[in-house]
């Protein structure tokens, strides 16, 4: 990725806003773009929030930086209320920058009589007045079809792979911890010029909610260094089971690149005692101190990548060339 070019780019024409979901990321993006970011949110004693926009937004492009990470329901509602206030302030275009998209895993009817929560959230955002959504590694790219307006999805791999490249690992095999992540794994394999791919199968027990188990694999990792890649770490069951399974199958060193780290439940404990040597994650989620200090977790900032995407959206450059270059 080219370094952010600030030519033909006037910070007077656009405004950055953020909610409370991930202010450090918003500030970091603003710094990359040599501008400032404003938080218009006030929270009342009963938990209701009020949005009041102070900068003049009339005829401006407004980028709202708000990943809908935990507390997910508050982050979503805040985003909707910010969009509403921005619309009423006569912005000419509203671009929602939400590197993490809460509820993106509930993207289909797995059983009867359930909502399609991700589709609901996407349409709430669109109908509130968003003209464009920018995500980072959305759980399934088909979700872009939940709305009619443009939805750009960029990949965290560009920000995550340099840390792996620096380790100069030989005989590297990229492994997807489930069947759904094979495309992502292929992408990493190409970026890292890794030897080959492997896939760990798992059977997810729906009635047990978030439990998952590694069962079998396609490919061979015996005596090889392994890079596990995934989009989200929740309670870390999937990736930890896969890693321990690969160790049993003779893998040498095991690393992981994951776009979004929620580390819910006892995830940190599980990772601590797992066969994983290091997990590289982005700052799409505003991490707790214990995540930042965890010896097996390394955070690579996606602020430069998002800043470049914002610049391209603002000046009308291609986003797809940012993805494939």
């Amino acid at each position: 990725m080219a370094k952010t070019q600030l030519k033909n780019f006037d910070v007077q024409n656009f405004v950055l806003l953020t909610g409370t979901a991930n202010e450090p990321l918003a500030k970091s993006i603003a710094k990359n773009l040599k501008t400032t970011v404003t938080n218009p949110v006030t929270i009342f004693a009963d938990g209701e929030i009020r949005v009041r926009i102070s900068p003049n937004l009339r005829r401006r492009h407004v980028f709202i930086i708000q990943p809908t990470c935990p507390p997910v329901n508050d982050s979503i509602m805040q985003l909707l209320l910010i969009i509403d206030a921005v619309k009423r302030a006569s912005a000419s275009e509203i671009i929602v920058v939400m590197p993490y998209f809460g509820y993106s895993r509930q993207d289909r009817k797995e059983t009867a009589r359930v909502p399609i929560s991700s589709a609901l959230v996407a349409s709430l955002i669109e109908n509130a007045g968003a003209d464009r959504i920018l995500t980072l590694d959305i759980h399934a790219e088909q979700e872009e079809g939940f709305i009619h307006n443009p939805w750009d999805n960029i990949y965290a791999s560009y920000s995550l792979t340099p840390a792996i490249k620096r380790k100069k690992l030989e005989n590297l095999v990229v492994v997807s911890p489930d069947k759904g992540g094979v495309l992502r794994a292929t992408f990493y394999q190409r970026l890292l010029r890794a030897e080959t791919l492997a896939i760990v199968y798992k059977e997810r027990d729906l009635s047990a909610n978030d439990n998952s188990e590694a069962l079998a694999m396609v490919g061979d990792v015996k005596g090889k260094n392994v890079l596990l890649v995934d989009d989200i770490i929740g309670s870390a069951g999937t990736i930890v089971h896969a890693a321990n399974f690969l160790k049993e199958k003779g893998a040498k060193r095991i690393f992981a690149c994951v776009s979004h780290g929620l580390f819910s439940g006892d995830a940190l404990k599980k990772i601590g005692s797992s066969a994983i040597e290091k997990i590289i994650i982005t700052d799409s989620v505003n991490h707790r101190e214990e995540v930042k200090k965890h010896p097996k977790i390394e955070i690579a900032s996606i602020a430069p990548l998002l800043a470049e995407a914002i610049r391209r959206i603002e000046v009308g450059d291609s986003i797809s060339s940012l993805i494939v270059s």
Partner: protein
Amino acid sequence: MLIFSGSSNRSLADKIAKDFGKEVSLVEIFTFPDGEKRITLGERVVGETAVLVQSTNSPVDENYMELFLMADALKRSGAEFVKLIMPYMGYQRQDHIFRDGEGVSLEIMARILEEVGVDEVFAFDFHSIKIPEIFKIPTHNLSALSTFAEKIKAEFSGKEPILVSPDMGGIRRIKEISEMLNLPFTTIVKDRDLNTGSICDSKLNGEVSGRQALMVDDMMSTGETMVKAANLLLENGATSVFAFATHAILSGNAAQILQESKIEKVFVTDTVEIPEEKMFAKLEILSIAKIAAKALIS
């Protein structure tokens, strides 16, 4: 007709269902460790009228999201008509632009409810009587005042109390209950600082000397309004002060503030479910379940 309940006020949903001789229909509301909710309806709803009971008090955003997801599940599963009983509607105080640059949070909530497939709304004692106008779907502003009137008749008859509205915004409400009971009323005038939300000045608009003062309001949030009003009434010669409010929001340490105040007794309704830790000795809860049930079939 099937009655479903969100997690904000299950006990009220049970009471409403009981009024129809029914049970609340099954729905699994599972919260993942990261806070996301997963809704699974436990009953077939194709072609049915579904009643959804959910207040959107604190945690307001979580309760709203749960409601949106439940409505989405009902509509996608073929429910023909969704009636929402939202005894307390969160964000109702943000019903207009107070200052330049603000959004209208209530308006966006109304739009979303319509968007997710709610066909009719039943709420109690909206902060402003103009709120139903924000909705395009039929919206009923039910009132708990008749419940309070019954209570006042039962406990204060012959004692010639005076009804008091703790602020000018409640003038319509206090007139209404005053007509129901044929009792006099007065109001307190208060000024609020828009930046901090705190009350900066208040004064009494009439005479309360030698009378029991019964304050009636739509909601009790921090308790600050009621406690300040009670002190003002006592300074002006009221013999004792009682408080009535439909919605027991009780944010922060409101329960403690009210318990330790000079208010004799606090009457609220069950539009908002009060958690165990916010119960206090002076509190009495009256139910609006019958009013809600009656509205559903009228």
